[in-house]
């Protein structure tokens, strides 16, 4: 029934290689460790060795920042404080309690995690700039306290005697410290890149792009923000501990805002979203400042010029420059290869190898069969979920009221929808349609009234919990995650990681399963061939369809669509109508739309809002003949 609407050939897509997700993080950390081992084995006791050691110390911190600040865009200026916590902690434990530095480093890192948990549960309630402003106070407070209280060596700093690797000869000590640092950076890089490449990494990416969209896709944003804060803080404390254990002196300047800025400089020069970039940034800044006396004296000028130039070339820093160079090189090579073959290169290979990517042309029968299988599997699993209680309404709103300031946008709205079917919500601009969708979806808290889903009161539930209950929505303006493929954009709503902790992302990744589910939804809509494309290269119709695919990929029981047809041409609207009719057989759809013809043609019941009040409810037939509707919407 459904498959007839899907062009089988177009439904075929190549699956991404699964082994990749593990090879990436291991390869990344292996590269760093190998480079570090070489340097430490041969140059540990020399000047260059000490520079690289210090750079790696900072890289431990910046790798955590790449996850927290770069990738997830949670700008917290608290790294230098936690770095200080780690460093001073080791110094105090070592000097006062004679604890070996290595043990102290571990103890301090764990303790910092606990501190970060407490502090973070307060601080991460803020988002965006509020978070940045609240946390920029931390280094200011710390440095003010240290210098005026005179504890821990006051405004100078605190020496310690026990190095990470206690040895009698300086040579052996340098090598031992170097090896330990390399081991630590290896673990840190592995953990960080493993998280980023897992399903939780995709959650974090969405969180970074748009916190509200993340919540609408089921991401428990408060929890992720707290976990990110703890992760960044623990990495920073670990970096600080290594600093103390290798430099044998903790300067008070380690915690001040300037130190925080230098760390950020390293991150942004290297590339804020890239773990390798963050490590490279630390190496470059440290190397440059150690390279000559002139540079180390005038490091401010050098850093200022360097970051300006790098960011002007590419906002993603050196990592961005390298990857776009590599992409250009690959394209050049592929173009050369294709010319030799005498055939054009496929436009949208994505994860696919060049052979299977040219989907429509050379599809094998097995591939078509696989696409068909996925399509029908999707339909079956959706229908199984949509169930609901027989006869009882799926959604019930009673007395929903919303004020913006003194303006009443929704005035005691009551409506009720069954488990299946298409329903229209119309009204002039400013009638409160989108606000009503927001109230049902959970992004807008009503001042009065109740929203029931399947008989259960969900009025106070946040959007992410409603998503788990089966409420899915699209936005009036297209909200997609730029920089990610179509497949990943759809996979966002198929993640099963919402309830697992950030640490679970290190152990296992279910990104492949989420992508499989997403592929089913894309095949169902006949969009499989788009799955490898980057979303910002798509046409508006396709972007809207990707958003639609994302909304249905979770197999929702209630689908809220906000003006899906706006900006689409007539043939595109015809196609949309077909899709909506199919989806209406599976689930309950509430459609906000200005195209009255479209609404009247496909829906079975229409609600009309005007100035926050429900002025009409009836069948399309009644809708066409209603005097109220004509005067309001058609202007007759």
């Amino acid at each position, binding site marked *: 029934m459904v498959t007839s609407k899907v062009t089988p050939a177009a439904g075929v897509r190549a699956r991404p290689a699964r082994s990749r997700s593990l090879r990436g993080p291991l390869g990344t950390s292996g590269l760093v460790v190998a480079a570090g081992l070489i340097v430490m084995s041969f140059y540990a006791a020399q000047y260059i060795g000490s520079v690289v050691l210090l750079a790696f110390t900072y890289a431990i911190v910046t790798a955590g920042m790449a996850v927290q600040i770069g990738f997830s*865009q949670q*700008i917290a200026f608290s790294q230098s404080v936690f770095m200080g916590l780690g460093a001073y902690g080791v110094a105090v434990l070592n000097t006062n309690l004679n604890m070996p530095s290595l043990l102290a480093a571990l103890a301090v890192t764990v303790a910092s995690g606990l501190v970060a948990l407490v502090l973070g549960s*307060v*601080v991460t*309630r*803020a*988002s*965006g*700039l*509020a978070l940045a*402003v*609240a*946390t*920029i*106070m*931390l280094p*200011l*407070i710390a440095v*003010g*306290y240290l210098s*005026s*209280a005179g504890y821990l060596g006051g405004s100078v700093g605190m020496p310690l005697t026990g190095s990470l690797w206690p040895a009698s000869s300086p040579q052996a000590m340098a090598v031992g410290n170097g090896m330990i640092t390399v081991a630590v950076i290896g673990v840190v890089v592995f953990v960080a890149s493993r998280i980023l490449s897992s399903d939780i990494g995709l959650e974090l990416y969405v969180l970074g792009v*748009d*916190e*509200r969209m993340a919540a609408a896709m089921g991401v428990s944003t408060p929890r992720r923000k707290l976990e990110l804060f703890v992760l960044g803080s623990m990495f920073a404390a670990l970096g600080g501990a290594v600093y103390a254990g290798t430099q044998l002196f903790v300067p008070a300047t380690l915690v001040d*805002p*300037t130190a925080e*800025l230098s760390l*950020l*400089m390293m991150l*942004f020069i290297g590339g*804020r979203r890239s773990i390798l970039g963050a490590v490279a940034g630390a190496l470059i800044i440290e190397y440059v400042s150690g390279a000559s006396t002139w540079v180390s004296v*005038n*490091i*401010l*000028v*050098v*850093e*200022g*010029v360097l*970051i*300006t130039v790098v*960011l*002007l070339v590419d*906002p993603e820093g050196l990592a961005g420059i390298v990857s776009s160079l590599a992409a250009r090189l690959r394209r050049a090579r592929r173009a050369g290869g294709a010319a030799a073959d005498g055939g054009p290169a496929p436009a949208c290979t994505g994860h696919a190898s060049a052979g299977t990517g040219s989907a429509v042309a050379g599809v094998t029968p097995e591939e078509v069969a696989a696409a068909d299988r996925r399509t029908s599997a999707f339909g079956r699993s959706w229908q199984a979920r949509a169930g609901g209680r027989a006869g009882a309404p799926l959604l019930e709103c009673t007395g929903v009221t919303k004020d913006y300031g003194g303006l009443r946008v929704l005035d005691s709205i009551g409506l009720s929808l069954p488990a299946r079917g298409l329903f229209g919500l119309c009204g002039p601009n400013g009638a409160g349609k989108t606000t009503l969708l927001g109230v049902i979806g959970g992004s807008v808290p009503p001042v009065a009234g109740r929203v029931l889903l399947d008989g259960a009161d969900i009025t106070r539930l946040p959007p992410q919990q409603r998503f788990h209950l089966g409420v899915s929505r699209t936005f009036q303006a297209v909200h997609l995650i730029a920089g990610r493929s179509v497949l990943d954009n759809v996979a966002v709503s198929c993640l099963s990681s919402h309830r697992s902790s950030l640490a679970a992302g290190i152990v296992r990744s279910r990104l492949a399963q989420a992508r499989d589910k997403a592929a089913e939804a894309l095949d169902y809509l006949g969009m499989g061939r788009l799955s490898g494309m980057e979303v910002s290269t798509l046409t508006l119709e396709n972007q809207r369809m990707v958003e639609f695919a994302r909304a249905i990929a979770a197999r929702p029981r209630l689908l809220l669509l906000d003006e899906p047809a706006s900006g689409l041409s007539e043939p595109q609207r015809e196609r949309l109508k077909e899709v909506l009719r199919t989806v209406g057989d599976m689930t309950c759809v509430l459609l906000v739309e200005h195209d009255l013809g479209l609404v009247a043609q496909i829906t079975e019941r229409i609600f009309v809002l005007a100035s926050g009040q429900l002025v009409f409810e009836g069948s399309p037939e009644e809708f066409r003949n209603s005097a109220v509707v004509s005067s309001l919407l058609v202007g007759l």
Partner: protein
Amino acid sequence: MKFGNLLIAGVVTGSIYAVFAVCIAVWYRVSNILNLAVGDFAMVGALGVDYLFRVDSWPLPAAIATTLAIVGAFAYGYDQVVLRLAQDGRRRQEGIVITFFFTFALSFFIDGVAKILFGTDVHAAPGLWNGNSLTFATGLHLERAGLLVLGCALISGLMFAIYIRYTLSGKAMEACGENNLGARIVGIDTRQYRRIIFVGTAMLAAVFGIVESPITGYTFLSGATISVTGFIAAAYGGFQKPGRALVAGIAIGILEALLGGYVSTQYADTLMYGILAALVLARPRAMGFESAVGG
């Protein structure tokens, strides 16, 4: 009397913060960039005048005029080269975070150059209005330099308010802040406003550096501290509202003075930052943060 004197001191410091906060907020409205280098221009103003006057023995007016001209020319050049490349090209608009870093980098650069030129000692521009502090009958004291600061703040604030309210170009500037694309569609050259206000605020900051430095004294690193306080004050105004930034700046100045006077001189700053952080976390919406976050 102690309270009155603290209040006066607080208002003087606060008006400095307020001026920098307003500079940051006004330019952010027009350009969507937070200028974290605004304090560094103040530092260059103070140390530049001091250097020309004291070391090179220039006459004071010439030293002031030259320093201001250099600051203005530098700001103009920076806008022409860096900001134009960063904002006006084909590239899509980056978030607030990236543009943060351009001004961070600018601040680093200016500080580094100042270190080379002026050294690391504490200096100040010569007092413009020397003499004993003014004493009122009730025992209130006011430094002459402080009065100058207040006067300058009042004059520049008034001029700016008149400009916004009564001139066409002021309205156009408002339009840039309300909706950048919309402003361009109706024929307002938003880039020109970005440039004018960047250069204007840089020179204004330099003026305040010259006027204020006799009170506190500056080093090459002072700029960052001023910028941070201005940034915090502007943040409490949601970055978009110069009026609220002004109030927040003065309030922070008074808070700092009162904490220093009544609680502890040593821990005044620490306490103040603690209170400010608590305010952000407790009432983000009331403090104007939500509007700035764009969510």
